[in-house]
Every structure is written in structure tokens, then in C-alpha cells.
């Protein structure tokens, strides 16, 4: 296998300091915008602002991708995936104590 080193790559930390538009979020997840709208409707992810043009915090990308994998691999529906993600977050929080 060939090796190649690229030096000093800077990424974006996916936290509440960065926001993405609906289009950017859909692109990052590799899905159509309609699907992201569905996720918002079912409370899987929430827009950061309530203005007409949605903006999403960085962590929404991670959450949306996890939800997509859960729906696909475990044959869950959106409310089920949202519930699993909420419970996993809660479990994480409790384990950190």
C-alpha cells in the first residue's frame, strides 16, 4: 500500500461555535434536503435558530449521521432513532459522573 503524508491539516470542530445551512448539512450527510427536513420534523435534530433560513450547530451533523445509521441498520423509524440518541446522551452523562 502506498503511503502519503499531508502536513498540518486543519479541520472544523463540530460544536456550537460553527453553524451549517440546510444544504451544507444535507451534503455532509450525503442525503437529500427533504430527509433532513424530516429529521427536524421528528425532533432528531434541531435548528440553532428559529428564523426562516435554518442554521444547524456543528454537533447536528454528528447526530444526523448517527440517526441515519440507526434507521438504516436497526430498521428504526425517526422517533425511535431520536429516542435512542437521547437515551445514549443521557447514559454518557451519567457515566461521566
Amino acid at each position, binding site marked *: *500500500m502506498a503511503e502519503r503524508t499531508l502536513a498540518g*491539516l486543519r479541520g472544523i*470542530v463540530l460544536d456550537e461555535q460553527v453553524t451549517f445551512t440546510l444544504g451544507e448539512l444535507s451534503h455532509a450527510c450525503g442525503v437529500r434536503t427533504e430527509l433532513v427536513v424530516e429529521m427536524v420534523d421528528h425532533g432528531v435534530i434541531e435548528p440553532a435558530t428559529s428564523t426562516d433560513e435554518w442554521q444547524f450547530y456543528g454537533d447536528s451533523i454528528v447526530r444526523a449521521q448517527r440517526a441515519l445509521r440507526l434507521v*438504516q*441498520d436497526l430498521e428504526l423509524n425517526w422517533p425511535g432513532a431520536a429516542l435512542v440518541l437521547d437515551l445514549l446522551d443521557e447514559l454518557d452523562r451519567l457515566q461521566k459522573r
Partner: protein
Amino acid sequence: MEFKDYYQILGVERDASQDDIKRAYRRLARKYHPDVSKESDAEARFKEMKEAYEVLKDPEKRSAYDQFGANWKAGQDFQPPPNWQREYSFGGGGESFGDAGQFSDFFETLFGQARGGGFGGFRTGGRMKGEDINASVTIPLEDAYRGASRTITLEVPEADTDGSVRRRRKTLNVKIPPGITAGKRIRLEKQGGPGFGGSPPGDLYLAIDFEPHPFYRADGRDIHLELPVTPWEAALGRKVKVPTLGGAVDLQIPAGSSSGKMLRLKGRGLSGTPPGDQYVELKVVVPPASDEKTRELYETLERGHSVNPRAKLGV
């Protein structure tokens, strides 16, 4: 290449019904799904299961696979029969699984590359993005405070000139910005697997985890520290040195403190807007009465005091 025993992977008999196979996959998927499971090898196990299920849930693929018979054992060196390609044609299986290059050589030789399709038809048509890659890196807390660089090695799929997909090792040097917290992900755009047919490459998501620290514990941007103090420091109130990620600072202990008292050093946690705080929990450490002098001092205290620390317990 190695033979894969798909029945063994799903833990079902060779004569299992399609329903049994579905049930076995669902049960295992709940246990080993990398987004849910805490098992260390969950990702590798789940990938195997997905591949096994992809073959066994499809009667056509299953019957093709079944003709190798029960004599094949997992891990045995395997070559497909010479007439395989002519007898069976699986035009790129797995339309429900979007990520290319996910399955083993064994699968791809028999059934073709599981490319394309995507999320139940929801994936953006035409412009199929390359595979997103998830990786993780564990760093010491000090590196999260100051920022650091990490060299990480990934295996990414790459299309050969003949169109077949190979895994290639790729080494990246990634900057970790100061103030990152555990569980956060860094997104490196277009550093994932290559796209096919002129489409853009996938992205790399690098999850950050912290190494356990001998005395700090991080909670988001806040840092927690248990600070040992002597009984007289706690009782009389003294200024003591406290380590922080940015270096030692002086902390005034209020007179009359006890174990468990929490003090806050504002802005001394991980950087950010706003920066985290450092929480210091006092732990009174009682020196043993191991010599005559200390013993006498404790006895003086005992004589001068008639306090009952267990009054609230009713004894």
C-alpha cells in the same frame, strides 16, 4: 482470500429460515451497532454482520453462497470456482448500504462491489460522495488545553485504473485546536474515501477522546480536581498552591472548610468562549498519630473539644 462463514457470524444454522436470519441479525445489530455498543470491537463485528446479512437475507445470493457447502471453514484460503462469473451475475449488490468499499474481498469477489444505491433511495442521486471515514484519537488533557498535532493513519478505499477498489494507507497530520473537549469531532472535508465517477471525496470525522489523567477530570470545558489539605489548613483558612492546566495558582481556602467543600477557579478550565472553570474539591487528609509529639497534639485537641460530628445521625 479468506473464506467467510456467514452462518457462523450470525450464529444461525445453515438451514435457518429467512425469519431466523432476520431475527439473528436484528438481535446482534442491537448489541454491536457502533453507535450504540460499548464493546471495543463493535465496529469490526458489526461490519461482518452487515456483510453476512447482506448475503443471507437475499435468497439468490444465499443459494449461490450455499453451494460452497458446509465443508468450508472460516479463515480457510478461498478461490471462487473459475466459472463463477459466468454463472452468477450480481450487478453491484447491496442497494441499501451506501458506503462503497465496506465489504471484504471475499464478498466483493463473489457478489461485486456494494457500491451506490444508498439510503433507501434518499441519497443524492448521481453525485455519489465518497465514503465518509470515522476515526478516533485519544489525547492527553494537556494537549487539549494547549492544542497539538497528531499523525493518524487510515485505510481509505481507492479506485485502481481498472476500476477495482483497493484499500490504501493514508497518513495525515491533523491539528487539534486548543480547547477541544472529549467526544467532539473534527471534520476534515474531502479527506475520506474517493468519490466515484467524478463525484467529490467523502469526509473524515475524527472523534476526540481524553486519556485518563492522574488527577484532573474533564467535564466538557470544566476541570475537576480533588485537592488534599491538612485539617489546620481547612480549619484556619490558608492560601495553598493548586495545579491548573495553565500552571499552578494560589487558592485561598476559607476558614472552617471541611472535606467536600467545592471552590471554583473561574476561567481556569479548557479554553473557549466562554472558557471552562476549574472546580476544586477539598479533601481533608489527616496525618497519622505516628509519633509521640503528634499524638500529644491530637490529645490536646480532644480534651479541648466536645463536638459530636455524628449528632445528625442520632448517635
